[in-house]
């Protein structure tokens, strides 16, 4: 029997307990915002705007090398150290001391190639790759010029995404962060239940006519309120601070939000059923959260992960939650789309399974009512 009469006071109690806990504010509000700001700056901040400071060495000065040097100066975003050539040794030292990002060595007698020297720690850096790409193109053009030929083919890059031409990396990252922080609130949020059990609060409630089902419903209601606050806050930061654009489909957003929040809270509930202490719970939640964070398409698309890892991504609930939230917030698609419903179904399956196992464990350990 569900006693709705008990709901208002229970809801008020859960609300106060949640909002009075300082850790909740930090981990669920400030932390995701800080994390999102950092990621935006690192990955999304000035996408397309290339900038690098380089030194140029010219071991065999001449007319050809002067011409090359001149062309390098024309490159947008490339800043040349000291406005002139340095020796190869000086250049390498500048790179090692990180005074410049890279050294470009123009051809010499021993080495007819144009050589790019970067610090080893930047070997796989995006800027290094971009620089290499640029130089390659540059060398090719120089070759054509030397041969007196003109290129027949050229390359144009264009990006597409559902929801029009609007989707940009900021949108992708913002929605990923929203899904991640909602998921984490669920995974970590049931730690209070461990504490309530340890202190005997749950037993105490069972000695009263309080409906434990209603107590749980009131708790979930507060979590939904909190989730809405998270979405609005992160969306505001993404849109106002980093120019992300929303293409809302409210119905699919609501469905994905509702099912996803329930599913991750159910997983948290399962964790709480098997942990005797807060520490044990936090350890489990941390493992789950880290495991999912990097392979569920929050920051990096699942398709770009190593192939052996992708099947794991395809079973993780966060993968589907991220998809669902993106469908609702930036792709503006959803209820008419089969892939949306597959995502919702997988999430729901996770939630139901976790809840059933959790409830069973609570009962088996007679943590829950013996009557």
């Amino acid at each position, binding site marked *: 029997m569900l006693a709705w009469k008990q709901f208002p006071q*229970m809801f008020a*109690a859960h609300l*106060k307990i949640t909002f009075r806990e300082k850790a909740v504010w930090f981990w669920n509000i400030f932390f995701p915002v800080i994390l999102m700001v950092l990621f935006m700056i690192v990955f999304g901040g000035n996408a397309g705007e290339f900038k690098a400071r380089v030194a140029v060495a010219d071991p065999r000065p001449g007319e050809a090398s002067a011409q090359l040097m001149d062309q390098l100066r024309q490159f947008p975003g490339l800043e040349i150290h000291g406005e002139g050539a340095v020796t190869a040794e000086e250049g390498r030292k500048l790179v090692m001391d990180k005074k410049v990002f890279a050294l470009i060595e123009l051809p010499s007698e021993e080495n007819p190639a144009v050589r790019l020297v970067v610090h080893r720690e930047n070997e796989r850096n995006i800027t290094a790759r971009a620089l290499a790409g640029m130089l390659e193109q540059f060398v090719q053009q120089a070759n054509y010029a030397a041969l007196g030929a003109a290129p027949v083919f050229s390359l144009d890059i264009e990006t597409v995404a559902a929801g029009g031409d609007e989707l940009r990396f900021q949108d992708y990252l913002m929605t990923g962060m929203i899904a991640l922080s909602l998921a984490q609130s669920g995974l970590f949020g049931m730690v209070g239940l461990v504490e309530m059990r340890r*202190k005997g609060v749950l037993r105490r409630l069972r*000695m009263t006519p309080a409906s434990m089902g209603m107590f749980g419903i009131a708790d979930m209601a507060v979590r939904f309120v909190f989730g809405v606050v998270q979405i609005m806050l992160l969306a505001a930061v993404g849109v106002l601070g980093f120019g992300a654009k929303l293409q809302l489909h409210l119905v699919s957003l609501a469905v994905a939000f509702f099912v996803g929040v329930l599913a991750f809270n159910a997983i948290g509930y399962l964790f709480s059923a098997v942990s005797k202490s807060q520490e044990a719970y936090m350890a489990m939640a941390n493992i789950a959260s880290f495991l999912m964070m990097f392979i569920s398409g929050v920051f990096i698309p699942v398709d770009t992960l190593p192939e052996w890892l992708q099947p794991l991504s395809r079973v993780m609930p966060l993968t589907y939650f991220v998809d669902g939230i993106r469908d609702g917030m930036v792709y503006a698609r959803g209820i008419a789309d089969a892939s949306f419903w597959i995502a919702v179904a997988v999430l729901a399956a996770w939630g139901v399974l976790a809840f059933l196992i959790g409830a069973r464990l609570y009962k088996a350990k007679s943590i829950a009512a013996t*009557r």
Partner: protein
Amino acid sequence: MPVLEVRRLRKTFGAVTAVADISFAVEHGEVFTIIGPNGAGKTTTLEMIEGLLVPDAGEISFGGLTWEQDARAIREMIGVQPQSGALFDLLTVEEHLRLFASFYRKSRPVGEILEMINLQDHRNKRVKVLSGGQRQRLAIGLAMINDPDLIFLDEPTTGLDPQARLNIWDIILRLKEMGKTTILTTHYMEEAEKLSDRVCIVDQGAVVALDTPAALIGRLTKEREIRLGFEDGEAAAREAEELLQRLGNVTRMEREAGQLRIWTERPEAALHGLFGFTRERGYRVERLSIREMSLEDVFIAFTGKEWRD
């Protein structure tokens, strides 16, 4: 009809028999105290009565209501203060009372409870910052919020300082005045003796004694111990010992220097003889005491175990 009747209760956990056979009946308006050594089965018994554990055998009846048939009705009419505080750290005193009041069909006004547990000045404080005694009073307040007929207080004074303990005694006596029935467990014999109408001593999962504190002590023995110290030293003590020997009525005596210990079933006759003798001889008595038997002696006699506070 008793408010609560427990018949032939039994509960085992694997190979361990926590409760072997416990029966008792609690009458309306009394303070009924259960005492026993650790592991005697007190907590298990209480948990079965409170509906947290299902007994293997036996019956529990709340004036005709049983857990199988009337769980909701029983929860409405009982109030429980569990041993562990079981409170929400981040809620205030008043928020606790309002939350718990919402669970019940009928409830006492929050202001009235605050006054009874004397926490009016702390009503807006969070549990986190309350003292042990204040938390315990709040826990008792929550047990009273539904104006229950039957209140369970499980070691309400354990770990409290003497003043805080007295505050809780006041609440228990107040409940009695209000005509409520209280079932109490305690670690303090003095408390059981002072507050209880009847005491039930439990050991090894069974009731070993059940009566009023006075009757339990009376049942033990009528013998009292008198201790005397003479300022005039050993000679006076020896003379007094000889006199009492002649007068009779003394079970046994022990003498050590000027100190004399006398065990007698008729302490007034022994003292009468003694004071006649000291006045006649002009001996001065330095110290005199009569030790009454206490519930602690009863406990030791029935369980064979030392009582540890």
